[in-house]
């Protein structure tokens, strides 16, 4: 077990270092200088030079690189060009909202995705399989933010079942927190559900055709138990490996969902910073999201090892 975790960690660390290096290089890609971009049309060579000095952009490449990594290891990712607040602080404020949204979305994704996949996969080729597959193909074509708009229109504007202003931190009021994340979670969940449904369907259909299903049925194990205990655990192996991509898709989709529901997560911070040319915050956000993806994949890799005995280091 420990060996499994260590071996996966050993793969994640160089990925993280490489990614952070690319993120560091981003400011060098900006045509002209980030300082000029921040200042906009009113920039003069003097004001650009002053801002560059202020932000430390005039220092040599190697010094900046060392500073970047020394800071990063202490949790310091620079300060916002616009608000002059530490990037770490800005994201820390908004992380709970994003995590709430992602967690809620994941619950919906798992329920819809596994549900549709199991309905189809346990009876491949049947009418109900074709209906379930058709439904997941359809959701693949629906923009999740549009579902969000429609949900708000129906449940908040027309039926007035939930408040339009959504997010309340969980420590303030858990009931209103839950109320606030239900609609955004449904919209976000649909973004990931189609892929999970496809994977589950294929994996489950394959598992149901496997010989061990015959052996267990022949031993008198009920069909329900064969499906949900034995075939399902086998099907989880490929489904888990698709989950990393699903989390990535959902993180990307969460930006638009945040806009629909006026959700104060990292997506809205990122958008504001893109428009305001706040490179430090965009850099921090890219690094944070990439790190989240790497961490999720690390956790998935470990659970993969727990489920699939063949992938454990011997």
């Amino acid at each position, binding site marked *: 077990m420990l060996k499994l975790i260590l071996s996966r960690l050993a793969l994640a660390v160089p990925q993280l270092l490489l990614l952070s290096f690319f993120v560091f290089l981003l400011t060098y890609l900006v*045509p002209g200088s980030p300082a000029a971009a921040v200042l906009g049309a009113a920039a003069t060579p003097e004001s650009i030079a002053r801002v560059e000095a202020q932000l430390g952009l005039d220092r040599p490449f190697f010094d900046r690189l060392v500073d970047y990594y020394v800071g990063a290891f202490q949790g310091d990712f620079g300060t916002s060009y616009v608000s002059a607040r530490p990037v770490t602080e800005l994201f820390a404020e908004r992380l709970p909202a994003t995590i709430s949204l992602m967690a809620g979305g994941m619950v919906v994704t798992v329920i819809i995705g596994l549900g549709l996949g199991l309905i189809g996969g346990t009876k491949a080729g049947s009418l109900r399989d074709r209906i379930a597959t058709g439904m997941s193909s359809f959701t693949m074509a*629906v923009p999740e933010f549009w579902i969000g708009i429609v949900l708000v229109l129906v449940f908040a504007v027309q039926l007035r079942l939930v408040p339009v202003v959504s997010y309340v931190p969980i420590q303030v009021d858990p009931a209103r927190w839950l109320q606030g994340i239900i609609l955004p979670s449904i919209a976000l969940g649909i973004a990931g559900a189609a892929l999970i449904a496809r994977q589950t369907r294929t994996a489950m259909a394959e598992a149901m055709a*496997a010989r061990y299903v015959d052996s267990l049925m022949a031993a*008198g194990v009920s069909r329900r138990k064969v499906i949900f205990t034995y075939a399902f655990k086998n099907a989880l192996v490929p489904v888990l490996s698709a989950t990393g*991509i699903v989390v990535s898709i959902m993180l990307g989709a969460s930006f*638009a969902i945040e806009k629909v529901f006026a959700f104060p997560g990292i997506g809205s911070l990122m958008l504001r910073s893109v428009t305001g040319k706040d490179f430090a915050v965009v850099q921090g956000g890219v690094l944070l999201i990439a790190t989240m993806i790497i961490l999720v994949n690390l956790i998935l890799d470990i659970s993969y090892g727990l489920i699939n005995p063949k992938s454990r280091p011997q």
Partner: protein
Amino acid sequence: MSETFTSNFHSVEAAPPQRSTNLGRILARVRRQPATLISFGFIVLLAVVAVTAPWLAPLDPTASDFDSVLQPPSAEHLLGTDDLGRDQFSRLLFGTQIVLLVALGAVVVAAVLGVPLGLVFGFYGGWWDRIGMRFIDMAQALPGMLIGLTVITIFGRNIFILMIAIGLIFASAFARVTRATVLGERGKLYVEAAEVAGLRKPQIIFGQVFPNLIGPMITQAAVFLGSAIMIESAMSFLGIGLDSDTPSWGAMLSLAVEKQNVAPYLTWPPGIAIILTVLAFNVFGDGLNDALTGEKRRNAPRIRGGAPRAALSTAASRATQTADAATGATSQALVLEARDVTVALNRPSGEQVNLVSGVSVSVGKGEVVGLLGESGSGKSTFARAVLGMLPAGTWLADGTITLAGEEISHRSAKELRHIRGDRLGAVFQDPMSALSPVHTIGAQLIEPLRIHKGMSRPAARARAVELLERVGVKNAAGRLDDYPHQFSGGMAQRVAIAMALAAEPELLIADEATSALDVTTQSQVLDLILDLRDEFGMGVLMITHSLGVVAETCDRAAVMYRGRVVETAGVEKLFDNPEHPYTAALLAANPVNAVGQDRLATIDPELRAVIDASIDAQAKKEAVR
């Protein structure tokens, strides 16, 4: 017609596949897919709308009209107006231009960046491939939105940068698909032939391999177009795509959110337009992919085993069955008595065929009865009929199955479940897949004990250890928590036998139980089955294609051919004095007799034709009756 094309498609040729025939075949397939045709029609319609938007649109999509702000749909403004009084219908039509242009541009960027990378990785392999694919993996793990957003931050906003931003997202996917296709093509003979002929790598890549990439690339492009439209809409919705004056569907939705309380009608048209467009590209891409790979329907119902072309009970088999009563045990001691078992299957064409027709087999207590036949003869289907586990789409059309005097052929699933594993055990072919690979053997072994013997978990585990020891697994207690892949094939089959015998059944069905094992292991496992037979006094139905297994283990055997039993006899009589010409031919084709000969004997095709003709004649006679 399609059959000849298919065989052509699968054969490996020394020359590049002929594209004209391929194209014809693909088009023919597409023509049979109504959904693909409809979606293609819709895409054409979109293209026409995009080109003719300036003439179709009633008003200028960017012209403000402050006298008619936020007007609901009316005759004048079909889809209403927004907060600047701009006509939504005109904006929707012009939006088609933006959507198609950006998506096409993005796919071109993705292909220009991704395809060369994929070609290099796929063709040169080695370190190029290993390092390159690492980067591709990393790029693909990131949310597409994050990549797009970063590009926009750095380079600003305009239509070309938007194309590049979205194109970058899909470049890695293009590289991956190209690489996979190249790796597939590389192994083919025509590439090797070109290499032998001394062509240089770039010449091979661009002259020989590249043309074969076009098909898969078009398919990928269609699918990516759908995804690119999704991303473009999301980015325009977020306000990081094009500016809000440009009529794009995503930006229209952005406005719809702002004015949700006063103008809910703004929500529907752009959303539905996006859904239909993406759906059209996805369905078209999938359909094209199916046509290219030659699959008619991905979810076609599986039909197990080769179905004999025609079937029905023969007079000959009835005659031998009457004789069977004389050679067999008395009916009181019979553990299995199957009479006239007929299993039918509905072909997709609606035609009904019999996989097993009128098969009668009996097994006495302590008796080992062989069911001998070539693959596709229906012997495994018969075994499944006895177990009540016929595959979907097949059913017991006729006959009775009696287990120790009790009729079991028409029991409910629940009743059958209590019979299976308890009074009826089964071991199947291929021990490595007979146990779930992600569960310990202990967990699987205790299932029948808990179900049929009502044992507690610790008691069942203790009994499982005894059973494992009995079937010859060493250090049984220590191996209970091991997984199937930690066992050899022979050992895994012993575990499967232990599971089948856990509840001490009256009948064991061994369906090709030893066919996948090497000869030494095979005879060890067969000896084990015989020993267990002596110990538990159960009957064994030994289903096999091997004459050796029958000779070694069986008291009697029934020979199956094309879904029917052609002869049943004691083993000695069967081998020394076969009655049916098929049995005789089968014995003559035994590879053991081929020792010292130039080639293995097979059943003479002319003789087979004679046997087939006699069976067909009998089938026809019965069909008339």
